[in-house]
């Protein structure tokens, strides 16, 4: 199984022969290139040209994040999987508003379902989230893409409001980004940017084009299909990590910088990354493919379902937590 590599310190990636090294003040460390499927740089990382060409040859994308943990861009290998048919069909499902709305609504159904599952879990644990559950249950997802998006907006809003009932520490005032103004906003932003690249790297392993999306507008400057896929999994992966870290006091005031807005510091990022990675690798038996799959792989399966949908093979049904 190949795993993503996270670099949180500053340094240089270089190649010697067919070995990749990370060099910094502490020394030189060989990286197991056959066991890496992506590299995420949270520190200032320079790539020598030899390292770049080795990584591109091996098909390993390198993602860069700035000091605030925001995604800056990627060194993306030449697309190795190319199917004209899939991209043409994928695009047709975008440009036909009715076809697009079908997929967008399914995505929001997935979001709604997974948020409700998460809230019901905390309801069972004695958290007073009933009113939020009722608000979200009331949302009937239908209409054109604009209406579906406002459904989505209201669902997220109620959900974020419920955080104050779930979290033992920190306040959730309102969702704010660039820069986040509270600890919780900082955690959500950081978690979402991690999930975004995880989704992107899964898309990279399929035939879908990462820019052609259904809920988000492809005009957004990022690979918007990754935003579509990631949204379905936020309640399952990101928020569950946040609730655990906060409620078990694994992250406290000390793990944040409070200069420009509120952001995780390096130690805080490491704690988050460790928990996030463990979550992605958690496995669950899949009822249809009858195999254990990781949470991360569920995102790949989501892409496969979209491929089948756009080809007309099987209607897309978004991922809903079944456990």
């Amino acid at each position, binding site marked *: 199984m190949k795993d993503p590599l996270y670099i949180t310190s500053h340094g240089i990636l270089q190649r010697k022969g067919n070995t990749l090294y990370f060099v910094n003040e502490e020394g030189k460390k060989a990286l197991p290139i056959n066991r890496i499927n992506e590299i995420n740089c949270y520190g200032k990382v320079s790539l020598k040209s030899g390292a770049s060409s080795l990584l591109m040859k091996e098909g390993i994308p390198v993602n860069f994040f700035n000091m605030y943990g925001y995604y800056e861009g990627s060194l993306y290998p030449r697309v*190795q*999987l*190319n*199917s*004209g*048919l*899939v991209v043409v069909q994928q695009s047709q499902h975008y440009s036909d508003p009715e076809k697009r709305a079908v997929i967008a609504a399914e995505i929001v159904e997935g979001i709604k379902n997974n948020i409700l599952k998460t809230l019901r879990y905390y309801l069972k644990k004695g958290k007073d989230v009933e009113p939020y559950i009722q608000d979200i249950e009331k949302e009937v997802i239908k209409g054109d893409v604009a209406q579906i998006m406002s459904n989505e907006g209201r669902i997220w809003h109620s959900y974020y409001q419920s955080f104050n009932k779930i979290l033992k520490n920190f306040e959730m005032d309102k969702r704010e980004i660039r820069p986040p103004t509270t600890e919780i906003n900082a955690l959500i932003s950081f978690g979402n940017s991690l999930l975004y690249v995880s989704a992107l790297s899964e898309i990279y*392993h399929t*035939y879908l084009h990462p820019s052609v999306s259904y809920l988000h507008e492809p005009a957004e400057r990022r690979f918007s299909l990754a935003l579509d896929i990631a949204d379905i999994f936020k309640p399952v992966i990101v928020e569950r990590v946040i609730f655990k870290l906060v409620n078990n006091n694994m992250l406290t005031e000390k793990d944040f910088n409070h200069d420009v807005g509120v952001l995780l510091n390096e130690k805080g990022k490491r704690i988050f990354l460790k928990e996030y990675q463990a979550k992605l690798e958690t496995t669950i038996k*899949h009822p*249809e*493919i*009858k195999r254990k799959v990781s949470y991360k792989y569920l995102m*790949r*399966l989501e892409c*496969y*379902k979209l*491929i*089948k949908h756009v*080809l*007309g*093979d099987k209607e897309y049904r978004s991922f809903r937590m079944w456990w």
Partner: protein
Amino acid sequence: MRVTGVMVQYYVACKRELWFFANQINMNYDNDDISIGRHIHEKSFSREKKNVNLGDVSFDFVKTGEKNTIFEIKKSSKLEEPVRYQLYYYLWNAKKLGKEADGVLVYPKEKKREKLTLTPEKEHEIEHIIKDIEKIVSQPLPPPVVIKPYCKRCTYYELCMV
């Protein structure tokens, strides 16, 4: 349309796989069985000149003599029947170009080989298969899932089942 030997193999093994493959949806990456197969192909028969192109198809290697022999190297004999048809297709191709040959399937790991000769009966079958392949591939939708004993190790497994 260019029909390859692998497509004939898929035709016998699974028509859905054939459709995906011929429509450029190839899942054969990042799979250990495929890597091992490629390794076996590269390491065995290292004294032979490998990958001989003839018309539309490419053989693993050929031995020339009174009658030429076309070799096909395989990792395992699990897909015996589909693989036979792949080789029959090569023999049919060779014959069409006036280079009649016999075929040998080799399984280096299993220390096993099998000789094949093209009969008029097989020729007829191959001609029918080619026509049918063209028909299947040009359909707008992939053929439905048909569960077979070897589905579990297929690289398309998750795509089909999910």
